[in-house]
C-alpha cells in the first residue's frame, strides 16, 4: 500500500496532491487526487469522495470544479479517484469512450475479461477509504460521497447500498436509472452480463425503492440544457418518483441554461460542499 506522490500544489491554504499506488482490487497502478485543507495540519478531517464521470481522470475535478476553496472553508478532505483501471491490456478496453477505460461505472464486474480488474465499486468503497485513513489525517467515521454523471450514479449507488456509511450524498447530473438508459445498459451488460436482475444492485432508482436505513438527504443538481438529459441517459424523474414514494428526501434542482460540463459543476460546487459540510461537521 505504498503511496507515491505524483504532485503537490499549495491550494486554498492547503495542498492539492496526486498520488499513485498499486491497487489490490484493480490489480494495476491507480492515481487519485486528494485535497488536504489547512485544518488537516492539526485535526482529523472528514472526507468527501468525489466520483467523476465518463472519460474523466482524477484531474478533471481538481482542475475544473473549484471545490478547494469551499473544502478549505469547511475543513473537508476531498478524495477523487480515477474512473476505471488503466493499462490492464484487456481487449477492447480502449475501443469506446463509454465502456472500458474511463468508464468503470463503479461496479464490481462479474464477466470476463473485466472481472479481474474492473472492481471499481470495491475500490471506492473499501480499498480507497482504507488507504486514505491509513495515510492521511482523516476521520474514518465521517465520510460522504458525491459525483458527476456516471460518478453521480456511483455516488448514489454507494450511498444507497451502504446505509450509514456515508453521512451525506449529492450528485451533479447523475445517471439515475442506468438499467433504463443506453449508457447503463451497455456497461451493465458488459460488466455484469445479460441477467438484468444482477443490474439492480447498481441502479440508484431500484436501490432507492428498496432503501432502508438511516435518513439520507440527497441533493441533486441538473442542468436543464444538458444534452444527455434530453437524450434520456440520466432519467432523474424516475429516481424522484421513487424517492417521493419512499419518502427519501431529495432536493432536485433543475438549473436553467446549464449543460453537462464542469462549468455547470463549478457553478454549484459550493452548494454541494456546504450540503456535505452540514452532515460531516454536524
Amino acid at each position: 500500500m505504498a503511496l507515491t506522490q505524483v504532485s503537490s500544489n499549495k491550494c486554498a491554504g492547503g495542498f492539492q496532491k496526486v498520488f499513485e499506488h498499486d491497487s489490490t482490487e484493480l490489480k494495476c497502478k491507480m492515481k487519485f487526487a486528494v485535497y488536504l485543507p489547512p485544518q488537516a495540519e492539526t485535526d482529523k478531517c472528514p472526507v468527501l469522495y468525489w466520483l467523476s464521470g465518463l472519460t474523466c481522470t482524477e484531474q478533471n475535478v481538481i482542475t475544473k470544479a473549484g471545490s478547494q476553496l469551499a473544502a478549505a472553508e469547511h475543513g473537508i478532505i476531498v478524495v477523487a479517484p480515477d474512473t476505471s483501471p488503466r493499462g490492464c491490456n484487456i481487449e477492447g478496453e480502449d475501443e469506446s469512450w463509454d465502456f472500458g477505460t474511463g468508464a468503470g461505472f463503479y461496479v464490481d464486474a462479474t464477466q470476463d475479461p473485466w472481472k479481474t480488474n474492473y472492481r471499481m465499486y470495491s475500490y471506492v468503497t473499501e480499498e480507497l477509504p482504507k488507504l486514505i485513513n491509513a495515510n492521511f489525517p482523516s476521520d474514518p467515521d465521517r465520510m460522504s460521497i458525491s459525483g458527476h454523471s456516471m460518478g453521480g450514479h456511483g455516488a448514489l449507488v454507494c450511498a444507497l447500498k451502504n446505509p450509514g456509511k456515508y453521512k451525506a450524498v449529492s450528485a451533479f447530473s447523475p445517471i439515475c436509472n442506468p438499467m433504463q438508459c443506453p449508457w447503463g445498459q451497455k456497461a451493465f451488460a458488459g460488466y455484469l452480463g445479460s441477467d438484468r436482475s444482477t443490474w439492480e444492485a447498481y441502479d440508484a432508482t431500484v436501490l432507492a425503492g428498496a432503501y432502508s436505513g438511516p435518513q439520507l438527504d440527497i441533493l441533486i443538481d441538473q442542468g436543464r440544457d444538458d444534452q444527455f438529459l434530453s437524450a434520456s441517459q440520466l432519467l432523474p424523474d424516475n429516481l424522484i418518483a421513487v424517492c417521493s414514494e419512499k419518502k427519501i428526501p431529495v432536493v432536485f434542482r433543475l438549473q436553467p441554461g446549464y449543460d453537462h460540463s464542469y462549468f455547470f459543476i463549478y457553478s454549484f460546487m459550493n452548494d454541494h460542499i456546504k450540503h456535505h459540510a452540514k452532515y460531516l461537521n454536524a
Partner: protein
Amino acid sequence: MDLFEIRGGGGGGLDVISEEAEHQESRELKAMDPYNVASDRGRGAARDVSTFQRFSVDTNESLRFEPCEDSPPSPTGAEDGYDDDDDVFKEGETEREIVTTRSRLQGKVAEMENFAGHLEEIFLTVEENFGRQEQHLEQHYNDVLQTLSQRYDERAAGLEEEKKGKLEALYGQLLVCGRALDASKELIETAQEVYRSQDKRLFLKAVKPTIKRMEEFAKEEVDLTLSTRLEFDTPLADMSDVKTMMDSINVVPAPSAPVINPQMPNSASQTSLRVCWSLFSDDTVESYELYYRPVLEDTPADSTCAPYVNRVKVKETHCTVTDLLPNAQYELWVTATNTTGISPASERALYMTVPSPPVIKRRECTSCPEAAMIRWESGNTNPVDSYTVELSETSTDGTAGGVTESIVAVPTCQCLIQLQTGRRYLIAVRAVNIGGPSDKSDVITVSTTGTFFHLLEDTAHPCLSISEDGFTMFYGDEELPISAMALDDTFTRCVAVLGDLIPVRGRHYWEVEVDDGTEFRIGVSYEDTERNSFLGANKTSWCMRHILSPSRHKYEFLHNGWSPDLRITVNPVRIGVALDYERGTLSFFNVALEQHLHTFHCHFQNYVHPCFSLDNPGALTVHNSIEAPEYTFI
C-alpha cells in the same frame, strides 16, 4: 460650675470636662433655663428660642456620656494606667487583653474628645444667645423707659398749661371784683355826701341822679362764683401701650416667612410629595401651614375656577401631602405661626408627583438572540420627561438573579436593548419626570434563545382570522363583507399577514407549521411591500410557495415573480426559515428532516418582516422563540 470656666479650658481642659461629664446633663438643663440653649445640631432642625419643647432630642443623645465602668473617666488617666500595667502583666493572653483594653480606652478618649467638642459648641451658643437676649431685653427696657419719660413730660406740660389758665381766670375775676368794690365804695361816698348836704336845694338837685346811679348799680350784678374749678382735670393715663411693650419683652416676634426648599430627588411618589422648608434661626414657630394646589396649564390665569387650595397644618418643617394626581405639578407655599402671629407666605415652590408606571405592550415586544425591542404605553395623559428600562438576568426557573442594568433617558415609548444570547431577562419600565421615577411597570420576560415576534394584525387580509395566542392564522371560505376591504395597511389580494420582526441585522430563525394540503406562501418582505400584489411576485418579497396540483406537490421559491425549478421528494409540513442579514441569505428547511430546501441570496437593504399567506382556505401556525439549529447557518 461656671460655664465660662469650662469654655476657657477648651480642648486643653479635657480632663475637667470629662470628670464633670456625668453631671453635665443636669447642669446643662440648668444652664438652658433662663436663655435656652440649642446646639449646632439643634439649630439645623426647628429651633425654638423661648420654649424648651423644641430642643432637639438627638442633641441630648449626642451628649449622653456613658462612663466606662472599669476604666477611669479621664483619658489621660486611662493612658497612664495602660503604661503602668504593661510591666505587671505577663505575655500572651494578658497582652491581648491589654491591647483590647487599650483600644477600648482609645475609643473612649475619642468619644470624650468628641463630647468635649460638643460641649464647647454648646457653651459658645449659650453665650451667644445670652448676649443676644440681654441686648434684646436692654433695648426693650430702654424703649419702655423712654416711652414713660416721654409720657411724663407730656403730662407735666399739660398740667402746667391748665394751671396757668386757671390762675389767669382767677386773676381776671379778682380784678373785676376790685373794680366793683371801688365803684360801690365811690357810690356810698357820694350818697353819704349827698346825705350830709345842708343845702336842701342842692340835695334835691343831687339826690335824683345819685339814686338813679344806685339803682343802676344795684342792677349790675357782680358774679361772685368761681369762674374755674379748683380740681385739676387729669385724664386717666393710657398706659396700655407701655403695658404692651412690657408684655412684649417676654413675647417673641412673629416669625418671618419660611424658606421652602426646592424638590429633592426621590421625595415624590405617584400620589404624594414630601415637602421640606426651613425657618430663620431667630424665629420661634409653633406650627406651619402648608398650602398647595395643582398647576393646571390649560387654566387661564384669571379663571374663576382656579384650583382649590389645600391646607395642612404641621409642627415639623416637613410634610408629606397625599392624595395627589400622578405626573402633575403642584404649587406649594408655607406660613409659620407662633403666639404672636403669622409669618408672610414663603416663596411658591413647584413640585411634581412622579408619573404612573408605563404599561408594556406585550403584543408589540419582539426579541432575537442578540436584542429585544420593548414597546410600552406611557400610562400618563400628560407627557413625561423620559423612561428608564430596567433589566435583570434570571435563571431559567424564574428566580431573579444577577445585577439590574438600567437604560436611562429613553425619550420615546420603545427601546431596543442589546442582550446576551441564550439568557432570560426580566424587563420593566419606569416613567421619569423631574419628580423622579415611577413605580415599575409589569415585568416582561424575554428569552434570547431564538427570535420572537407577533403577527402584525393590522396588515392581515380581511379573510384571515388570527387565533387568540396570535400565532395561528385561518383562512375561512366564508364570503367577505365588502366593507372589510377598505382598510389601510392590509393585504388586499394575497391573503397574507406580516410578522413584527425586530429590526436587528443579525440572524433570525422561525418555523411554520402547515397541513400537507395547505397552499401557502411564507418568507419575508419589506414592510412596505405592495399590499395588492402576491408575495414573491415583486422585488420587495421573497417566499416559498406550495402549490397542490392534481398530480403532485409543487414548490416554488419566488422573488420578483421568478422561481428556480426544483423538486422536493418529501413534503415539508414544518418549515424552518432562516434569515441572515449579514450574509444576505434567506434559507428554507424541512425541519423534520433537517433538509435544506432553498436559499435566496439577497443583501436586504431595509429591514424585512416575516410574511405568511394562505392561497386556499386552511390554517398556518408560526412557531417562535426557537433556537436556530446549527445547520441553518452553515
